[in-house]
């Protein structure tokens, strides 16, 4: 579809580079892991919804929480991280290029992550790590679980450092020029990721590993949770930012338009870097050991991170309207009707964008200090991140898949695959609306998350909840069909679609766009502000937590079925 010859480079530095066969292999390796994860994780999700509806019990002594741990780890941590790193490498390769040395280091990051992933996965499959993906202390998994996780994080750091190096080398070669927008965005995302994941790495390496090996007798539970959530919220922005990259800089090209504003896009990303990290307390609002004033301060910072998303909403609609009007579609909504709805590269991410409206609304509610008590740890929260991560982010990633995979494998997105993709996006939307909708309502009625099927002693409330759990099983089954279809499409695009050249769509600026101010490239300042905000939000409450610590906790492994 849309075969487009790469234009003759008249201004060499600005134009997308070509991705070599050797590079494609690297980027595709990340994609293979991502789509294998999608399949396994999706299957686990289906099993959960069926168990919770009371229709099946798991055979062979498999535990519900083992399935749930696998689902969370493999989708929230493995699928996302591999897809994002692979996609970001391809963006860097296309916009700033990759050297031989960087290429080797990128492979190193891949293999370190794979070794870690396999270690963690085996531990879960053997039933030795039924601790869910948040692995809250003092539940203790087998040490291999934590060591594997540490390796995944370290591998991702190598990838981030390669990305920084790629931009650095490019800038040396292009003094005084602004960096390509997508390379700028990738760098922001990896900066945020590295700064944030230091928290969870410290928790895992300093606290969990020695404790699980028996070298440390006790663990400070609240410190471990605080370090986890210092990482946990930027984690969700690490998923969202690649979707924003596609919305800002790729979708405009697909709909035949231009960038709305290069500088506003960069500004939004800088704000996201600032305010994604110093906000972890909004996941700990109902915890007993954190000062409420500091909780509220982080709530205010959380609300700040909404602002770049408000800007993004405007930019996207504006891109659509300007493009439509330029094509001659009149009236208030002519431009909307005439968007390329039949092009799956547009449709899938577009549904993702629309899903972010209820997703964002839910997010503001969750972070609203005392109001969090209405929804905290109810299945509303599960509904929330299935509409954000599993719809907004995932559908955008699917939208990227339709052109990125054939571009890398030298094939094309045919009309029939495009049609399958549209069906896939619709199945996903229907399944998710039913599942996530039912989760939101059940959550407001008090239904808990992370729980296997239970009648709770036959209370009236529990008998109401079950109907929503049945609806979730219906939605979950529809979604599983969507996953099978997506895996089929991935295999087709990788091995069987006709040979050809698929466009790597990157939007350009308007000819007469106002120039991007150079101060936006002031990396040192951005990093300094980010760190200052983190120190402001965390220093005092963290010292307070440590000074007022209760006795530490010994490891508990019998509650998860190990002893």
């Amino acid at each position: 579809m849309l075969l487009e010859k790469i234009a003759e480079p008249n201004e060499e530095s600005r134009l997308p580079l070509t991705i070599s066969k050797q590079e494609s292999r690297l980027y595709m390796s990340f994609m293979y892991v991502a789509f294998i994860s999608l399949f396994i994780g999706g299957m686990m999700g289906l099993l959960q919804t069926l168990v919770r509806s009371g229709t099946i019990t798991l055979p062979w002594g498999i535990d519900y929480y083992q399935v749930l741990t696998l689902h969370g780890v493999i989708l929230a941590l493995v699928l996302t991280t591999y897809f994002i790193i692979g996609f970001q490498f391809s963006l860097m390769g296309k916009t700033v290029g990759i050297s031989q040395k960087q290429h080797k280091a990128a492979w190193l990051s891949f293999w370190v992550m794979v070794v870690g992933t396999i270690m963690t996965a085996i531990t879960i499959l053997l039933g030795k790590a039924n601790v869910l993906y948040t692995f809250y202390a003092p539940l203790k998994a087998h040490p291999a679980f934590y060591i594997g996780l540490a390796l995944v994080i370290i591998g991702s750091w190598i990838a981030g450092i390669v990305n920084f190096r790629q931009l650095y080398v490019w800038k040396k070669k292009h003094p005084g020029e602004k960096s390509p927008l997508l390379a700028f965005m990738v760098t922001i995302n990896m900066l945020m990721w590295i700064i944030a994941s230091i928290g969870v790495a410290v928790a895992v390496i300093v606290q969990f590993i020695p404790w699980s090996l028996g070298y440390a007798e006790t663990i400070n539970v609240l410190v471990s949770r605080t370090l986890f959530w210092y990482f946990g919220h930027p984690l969700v922005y690490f998923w969202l930012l690649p979707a924003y990259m596609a919305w800002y800089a790729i979708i405009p090209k697909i709909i035949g338009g231009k960038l709305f504003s290069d500088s506003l896009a960069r500004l939004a990303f800088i704000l996201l870097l600032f305010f994604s990290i110093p906000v972890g307390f909004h996941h700990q609002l109902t915890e007993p050991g954190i000062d409420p004033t500091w909780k509220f301060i982080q709530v205010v910072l959380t609300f700040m991170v909404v602002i770049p998303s408000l800007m993004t909403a405007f930019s996207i609609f504006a891109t659509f309207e300007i493009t439509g009007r330029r094509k001659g579609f009149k009236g208030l909504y002519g431009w909307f009707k005439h968007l390329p709805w039949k092009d799956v590269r547009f449709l899938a991410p577009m549904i993702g964008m629309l899903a972010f409206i209820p997703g964002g609304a839910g997010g503001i509610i969750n972070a609203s200090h005392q109001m969090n008590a209405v929804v905290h740890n109810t299945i509303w929260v599960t509904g929330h991140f299935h509409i954000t991560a599993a719809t907004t982010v995932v559908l955008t990633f699917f939208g990227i898949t339709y052109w990125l995979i054939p571009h890398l494998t030298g094939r094309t997105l045919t009309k029939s695959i495009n049609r399958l993709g549209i069906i896939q996006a619709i199945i996903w939307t229907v399944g998710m609306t039913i599942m996530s909708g039912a989760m939101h309502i059940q959550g407001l009625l008090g239904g808990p998350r992370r729980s296997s099927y239970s009648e709770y002693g036959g209370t009236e409330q529990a008998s109401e909840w079950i109907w929503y759990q049945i609806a979730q099983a219906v939605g979950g089954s529809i979604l599983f069909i969507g996953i099978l279809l997506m895996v089929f499409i991935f295999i087709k695009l990788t091995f069987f679609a006709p040979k050809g050249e698929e466009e790597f769509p990157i939007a350009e600026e308007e000819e007469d766009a106002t120039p991007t101010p150079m101060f936006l490239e002031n990396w040192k300042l951005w990093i300094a502000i980010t760190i200052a905000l983190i120190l402001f939000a965390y220093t005092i409450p963290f010292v307070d937590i440590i000074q007022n610590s209760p006795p530490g906790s010994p490891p508990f492994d019998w509650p998860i079925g190990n002893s």
Partner: protein
Amino acid sequence: MHLHKYEKIWLTFGIGSLVIFLVVLAFGAFWQGTHPQSHGVTIDPENIEANDAFKPENLGITKVSDDKYIVNIVATAFNYNLGVDEEGKPVKDIRIPKGSTVLFQVTTKDVVHGFNVAGTNINMMVEPGYISSYETVLDNTGEFTIVCNEYCGVGHHLMFATVEVYE
């Protein structure tokens, strides 16, 4: 950097709404005392009975005065200990008259638990080493399920009790 005039209006409106949300929340939290529970009261999880509230005879519901009650609960995997009745059987249901002021105090002897009286704002994390507490007026009648809503192990979904608020 140029902002379209509509974008200026939109951002003013959006940021303004966020500010109003925050003011409403801050008013409730700082002036009316509706902060989420955060008392920072610690306890030794291996010797909770050192604290009077969690001595076996003080578990469950205690009437303090006419319309004031205290409910003390010890959470363990996978049970809420609400004390025992006259026959020595574990209490699983508590009954409270409507309009009472009730202080819930919960702690754990082992791992992290949740404590949610489903359908109310009584929703707390229960972590080893801390006492979670929340005082509220029970104005709505009905039978409410207490559920553990933080994963605590393979029997997590079997951890529950009930509160009945009657006229």
